[in-house]
């Protein structure tokens, strides 16, 4: 069963050994996605464990300064501190219904690993998280959090020692233990059905925004702005609005330290903005690659956006002009991190800071319209040490 494609993107480019597992997952997802009992349990977890719904907060000080109405969708208030738990609850529950006993996951910033450990331990799974060795250092508190919740964290020493390499290792684990294991992918990437399934589980964000903004403003926003690495928080908030063509959907990528490439690496992570058509880790999408098709290492101050690809559906929506890719670099994100903290008393994750930074830059030009929603995908506690070091010039 070949999965649905998004235009030319998507598909299932995986070793043959994984194809039966993908078929089984597709069947399991089709069977349970509308099952009343499954949905009731999912709803219970989202509400009573994750703490949904999250508020849509009117950022009054920021709005005043930038002259547009700015709302923050407070995914930073989800249990664990990021939107990631929406998806891990959904997939872990699905894995439970499918009779799996073991979860593997990869993580960049550690938020997805943490959310997998939370859902996994709560539902009785053995959880293994693969994380680039570089990321285990820059996000060591998240490693500790995962271990506290019973997950085994495997530092990955190969390649660039970041998210891309962690995904390779998690795939290898899955290949070796496919019979009892569910690979819990944390973003809208990978082979079908993952991009669709993760998008569906994250769509709770956009569905809530639809109701909340109507209650508060009586209309939909002019733009919705979300940071984009793999793109799960972006697809989660965008998807319910895709048919509402008057709402501009703005995907902000990490511009890193500059929009250039060296021979083996990009100084940024902007695969949607400047990447090219290719096949990476299970899907055809836009990726950062050299002229031969070797994958370039990506770069960003935020581990969660530091990825050489992007979800295939985002690539498609960018191709047809439905979403607007934009870039915010490391310096802009750090500035936004500080400014939002000072202005609203909310410390954003470095990932989310990219979305905030873009709004700060573009609001006054009028390109975002009068009413803007920023998806505040996570909180910045995990980044405090990293940012403090940068501030001190260490």
């Amino acid at each position, binding site marked *: 069963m070949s999965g649905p494609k998004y235009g030319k993107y998507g598909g299932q480019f995986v070793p043959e050994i994984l*194809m039966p597992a993908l078929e089984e997952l597709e069947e399991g997802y089709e069977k349970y996605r509308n099952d009343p009992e499954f949905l009731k349990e999912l709803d219970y977890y989202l509400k009573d464990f994750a703490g949904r719904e999250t508020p849509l907060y009117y950022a009054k000080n920021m709005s005043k300064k930038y002259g547009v109405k700015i709302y923050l969708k407070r995914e930073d208030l989800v249990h664990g501190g990021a939107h990631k738990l929406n998806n891990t609850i959904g997939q872990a529950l699905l894995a439970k219904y499918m009779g799996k006993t073991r979860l593997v996951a990869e993580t960049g910033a550690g938020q997805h690993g943490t959310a997998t450990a939370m859902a996994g331990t709560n539902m009785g799974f053995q959880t293994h998280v693969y994380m680039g060795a570089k990321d285990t250092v820059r996000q060591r508190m998240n490693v500790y959090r995962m271990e506290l919740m019973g997950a085994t964290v495997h530092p990955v020493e190969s390649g660039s020692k970041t998210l891309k390499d962690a995904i390779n290792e998690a795939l290898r684990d899955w290949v070796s233990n496919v019979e009892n294991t569910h690979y819990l992918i944390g973003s809208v990437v990978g082979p079908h059905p993952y991009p669709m399934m993760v998008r569906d589980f994250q769509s709770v964000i956009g569905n809530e925004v639809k109701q909340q903004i109507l209650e508060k403003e009586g209309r939909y926003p002019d733009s919705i702005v979300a940071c984009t690495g793999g793109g799960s928080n972006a697809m989660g908030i965008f998807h319910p609005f895709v048919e509402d063509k008057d709402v501009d959907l703005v995907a902000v990528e990490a511009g890193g330290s500059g929009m250039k490439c060296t021979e083996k690496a990009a100084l940024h992570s902007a695969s949607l903005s400047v990447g090219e058509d290719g096949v990476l880790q299970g899907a055809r999408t836009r990726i950062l690659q050299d002229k031969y098709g070797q994958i370039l290492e990506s770069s960003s101050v935020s581990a969660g956006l530091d990825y050489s690809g992007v979800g295939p559906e985002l690539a498609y929506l960018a191709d047809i002009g439905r979403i607007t890719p934009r870039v915010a670099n490391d310096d802009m994100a750090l500035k936004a991190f500080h400014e939002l903290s000072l202005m609203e008393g909310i410390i954003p994750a470095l990932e989310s800071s990219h979305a905030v930074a873009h709004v700060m830059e573009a609001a006054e030009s009028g390109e975002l319209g009068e009413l803007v929603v920023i998806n505040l995908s996570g909180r910045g506690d995990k980044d405090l040490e990293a940012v403090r070091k940068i501030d001190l010039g260490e």
Partner: protein
Amino acid sequence: MKLSTKFNELKDRNEAALLSYVCAGDPDIESTPEIVDALIKGGADIIELGLPFSDPVADGPTIQEASERALKAGMNPDRYFELVASLDVDVPLVCMTYYNLVFQRGLDSFVEDCVNSGISGLIIPDLPAEESEDLAKACSNKDIDLIFLITPVTTDDRIKMILEKCSGFVYIVSRLGVTGARSDVTDATAQILSRVKTDVPKAVGFGISNGDQASRVVSAGADGVIVGSAFVDIIASGENVNQRLEELAKDIKDGCRKK
């Protein structure tokens, strides 16, 4: 040389084939021709030459590290085809690589470069049969074999679908997991071999590292054994590489003769 010609030759001699994998450019580009020679001297019937990719998800650490060494040594598709064209060998050559490299070169260009440099078959481990239509067309236009994998978890329906698309030989993965030398060859091999009913030669890979294992796989009904990580381990050690490759190839080939 065509893969079918080689398998027919071996069938007449009542032998199974030794298919040996090494990564082109590992540890450096100059060494590859000597390594290939050593393997052929030892008895390798078919050479699989890896074209290294930055993110080889179907491979274990041994071959991933070989790919990293080769990329570091400057291997790329242009140099790969030059290198292959310069090899003076009388055995079939098979290119093993990942789909993005084929995709970026353009499917037709890639296949044409294969033909011009003397490659007879292609193995793309991250291209399942479902996604292979375009490449299959390019390959059949140029009479190049496109080889697919079958694993112990592949369902009977999929086996049927894969066999319809597969030519040259079918690559049978004897166990779950990624590539890498292992000490056991399980009953799963015999089971999977009995499930694959075809006239296309069946070559078994993953985990084979000596003549005893090879002979067990061959008596279970394989027409060939594929050995990769055990050779790559020798290359990685850097000690008496060519001599040891030849000896190991000879040991495994002896196992292939007990058909």
